[in-house]
């Protein structure tokens, strides 16, 4: 028996044991709205994507949102990525007018009374470079100093802002060496070599520039499909631990595959103790990079069954989340995509294999004619099963003119998980928007997961959970030997499993705290496997509280 087989066996035994604690199945759907949608006092952000008649592809792709506690006051703050000013005729060098406050990214600090204050300028985040059109955001404490840092992706050069711990940030991109270049989209921090320091993965979409831009469509101009442009590689940066990163894309094997990367999510899908990478590619095979545990990755999406939809087609993958939706202890994948095919569920069958099961999971009914972007698998009703929330809206801003069955603006999809099968529910708003980013977290610290979404040309939407009768538990990990954020840890609570990460969705970064709905259970049994390999268990933990779990120093 190999080491991996042994770990896999132990892993599956653990899952089975916890399966006894699963909440009762077959709970009735909640008919009243799950969320109340309302504006946030103090947040005046508008995502300015600047659509033009030239149909520059970047215009329809932003922008991200992050939920982070940048000042460690226990309240989630919100960071929004803005697009930029695009003119019909763009000259080089490009100027996206990012000095203009209308095109700034924005950081809003949450005040104790639930209102927000724009601290962008004070924090040193006001200007993101005139040649950078904003896309996404990743959050992680890359230097383990206890304060979350911000990584921005752009069409142009990416930016790493170090959190100084005093409410301000410093642009350390040049020193860190993480500018990437080209068209970066989603990014995420994770620790691929378990050395206790967060590394960085950046998806890149395609080889596009103003000069290479094309207009498609015959009678009506549209944005061109990804196949009109060359595929491109993703980027992996290794954290050296001295404030600098090394581009290991080639050495790790990541750059061996070119694609049209949009979304990225992380989890250890085969239980070998090393975090793997899934890249949602647009209109090509999805990538599943298996972490070989020696600094290299092998892409095996097709042979693992995680590359193509249930119908055997290449998904136009946009957003992705890598969590366990059916409580079997193994992380599954939910990939959003364009209309005419359902959103894809890659069910983790164990032994490193997946099978596309979107129809069995109910997404054939939920998602045939819609376009999905940001996505989360979170337990919104705290019944012990992770539900799905997806922001939607077509790529083309004129799609109705040639297909009356499609919509540029769409309301979000909320689907409640009924023991592994998803059913439509009322998200509390049927307002159609051109949705893009989505971040998930407990904004008001009430134990119920909220959602913040972005939409092109509009203010963000805030979905506040209306709560219910069930219990919950929210865990903050504090790594010691592992990375400070605990990213990559597998946390099991009463038969549910979460993989610690802020990444996933589309362009966005989630509340790093791990939230568990407990149903009617008033206590929880917790088991953690840290990236360091250390295992930790807590029994009979009282429900309805926020707890911090420090990594045990004992192996």
């Amino acid at each position, binding site marked *: 028996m190999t080491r991996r087989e042994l770990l896999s066996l132990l892993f599956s035994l653990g899952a089975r044991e916890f399966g006894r604690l699963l909440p009762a199945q077959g709970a009735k759907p909640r008919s009243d709205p799950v969320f109340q949608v309302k504006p946030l006092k103090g947040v005046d952000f508008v995502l300015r994507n600047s659509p033009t008649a030239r149909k520059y592809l970047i215009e329809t792709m932003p922008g991200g949102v992050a939920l982070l506690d940048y000042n460690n006051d226990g309240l989630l703050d919100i960071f929004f990525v803005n697009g930029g000013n695009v003119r019909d005729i763009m000259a080089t060098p490009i100027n996206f007018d990012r000095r203009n406050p209308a095109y700034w990214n924005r950081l809003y600090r949450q005040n104790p009374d639930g209102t927000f204050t724009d601290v962008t300028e004070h924090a040193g985040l006001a200007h993101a470079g005139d040649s950078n059109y904003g896309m996404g955001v990743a959050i992680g404490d890359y230097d383990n100093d206890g304060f979350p840092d911000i990584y921005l992706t752009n069409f142009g050069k990416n930016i790493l802002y170090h959190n100084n711990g005093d409410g301000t940030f410093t642009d350390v991109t040049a020193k860190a060496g993480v500018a990437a270049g080209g068209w970066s989209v989603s990014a995420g921090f994770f620790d691929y070599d378990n050395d206790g320091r967060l590394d960085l993965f950046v998806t890149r979409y395609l080889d596009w520039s103003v000069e290479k831009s094309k207009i498609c469509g015959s009678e009506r101009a549209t944005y061109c499909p990804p196949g009109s442009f060359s595929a491109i590689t993703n980027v992996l940066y290794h954290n050296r631990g001295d404030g600098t990163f090394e581009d290991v894309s080639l050495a790790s094997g990541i750059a061996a595959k070119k694609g049209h990367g949009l979304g990225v999510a992380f989890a250890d899908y085969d239980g070998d103790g090393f975090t793997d990478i899934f890249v949602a590619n647009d209109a090509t095979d999805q990538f599943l990079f298996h972490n070989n545990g020696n600094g290299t990755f092998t892409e095996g999406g*097709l*042979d693992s*069954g995680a590359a*193509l939809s*249930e*119908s*055997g*087609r290449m998904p136009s993958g946009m957003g992705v989340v890598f969590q366990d939706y059916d409580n079997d202890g193994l992380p599954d994948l939910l990939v959003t995509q364009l209309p005419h095919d*359902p959103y894809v569920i890659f069910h983790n*069958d164990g032994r490193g*294999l997946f*099978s596309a099961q979107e*129809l*069995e*999971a*109910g997404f*054939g*009914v939920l*998602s*045939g*004619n819609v376009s999905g972007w940001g996505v989360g698998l979170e337990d919104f009703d705290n019944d012990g099963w992770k539900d799905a929330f997806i922001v939607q809206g077509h790529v083309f801003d004129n799609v109705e003119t040639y*297909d*009356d*069955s499609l919509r540029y603006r769409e309301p979000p999809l909320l689907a409640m998980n009924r023991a592994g*099968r998803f059913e439509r529910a009322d998200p509390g708003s049927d307002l159609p928007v051109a949705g893009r980013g989505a971040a998930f977290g407990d904004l008001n610290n009430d134990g119920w997961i909220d959602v913040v979404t972005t939409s092109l040309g509009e203010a963000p939407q805030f979905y506040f959970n209306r709560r219910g009768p069930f219990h919950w538990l929210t865990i903050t990990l504090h790594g010691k030997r592992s990375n400070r954020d605990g990213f990559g840890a597998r946390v099991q609570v009463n038969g549910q499993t979460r993989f610690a990460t802020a990444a996933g969705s589309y362009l966005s970064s989630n509340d790093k705290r791990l939230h568990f709905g407990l149903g009617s259970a008033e206590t929880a049994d917790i088991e953690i496997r840290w990236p360091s390999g250390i295992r930790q268990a807590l029994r009979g933990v009282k429900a309805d509280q926020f707890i911090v779990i420090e990594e045990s120093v004992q192996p």
Partner: protein
Amino acid sequence: MIQALLWLCLLLQPQSADPSVPPDALPLLQSGIDAENRGALDQAVTAFRKAADLAPSSAIVFLRLGDAYMKEHDYAAAIAPLQHAAELSPDSPAVHQLLGYALLAEGYASDAIPHLKIIHDPGALGIAQLQAGQAAEAVANLQAALAKAPDDADLLFYLSRAATALAGQSLDRLRSVDPNSARGHQALGQTDYEIKMLPEAAKQYEQAIAMRPDLPGLRLELGQVFAAGSEWAKAEEQFRGETKLQPGSAEAAYRLGNALLQQGKMKEAAEELKRSDSLRPGMPETLYALGRAAASSDPDAAEHALERVIELEKDTPLAGQAYLGLAQIHRRQGKTEQAAREMQDYRRIQALAAHPPS
């Protein structure tokens, strides 16, 4: 096809025997013929034009001039001399053929039809009738032409166009003479469906069903409208209704099975798809859907169905998808080597699709 036919049956008589050609025009006429034989078409046209000036009553000279223009693909210039030739020699099939072709080539389809009728060329006549909006006549003539040349790609293409046009005309007439009949609503529903106005299409079909609930086909089409909008539960209801009306319809059974499949009702879907396969065996789409539906609940049936898809489809993309489905089943069963071989076949077909053999 026009061009190919043009040069087959140009009937020309020896010019020296034609009394309408004056002696002083004969050398020019001969010079033009010689130039034409050398392929010097510009010189031929010049010579024929000079001959025509000297022989204004000679049909053969104007025919030669028109023919030279047509060989130069200058159909517009050919029309006038050929019309003059037709006035001088109204019974000459060669003149009518060239004139009919020239008019058709320039888009004067209605004007070409009388000339093409004279020469009994059903293919060219059918094309002209299609372009003149005479779809029914076009279908008849193109079918007659295809009886003699069943594999002619151009004729097949134009026949398909003519049939489509005829269907459209029939529907237009139906809509105009009885728009409020069940068939009228069905026709309107079909039009709305084709232009992707799905809610409007559904309303039309629902009105048709209300008027004639037992009319076969209505529920099948309404179900397809719902399916196009991914409203699978509604589609299932309609397809189920159709299967009650037409229990022997393999298509209704297939579509019901697919609607069940899309809703994740795998066992029910597999049963219905098996029924469809028994009604009309050997339909690759039915078998592929059956392979998908039965993959978890009845892997042997799924495997058998997917293998039959491969037998039928060989190296098409659907066969590639069938290989993928087989690999999925075999991976689950732990048959990794077999799955690996199937993935190789899948990749081979993908490569074929990306780089088809020349």
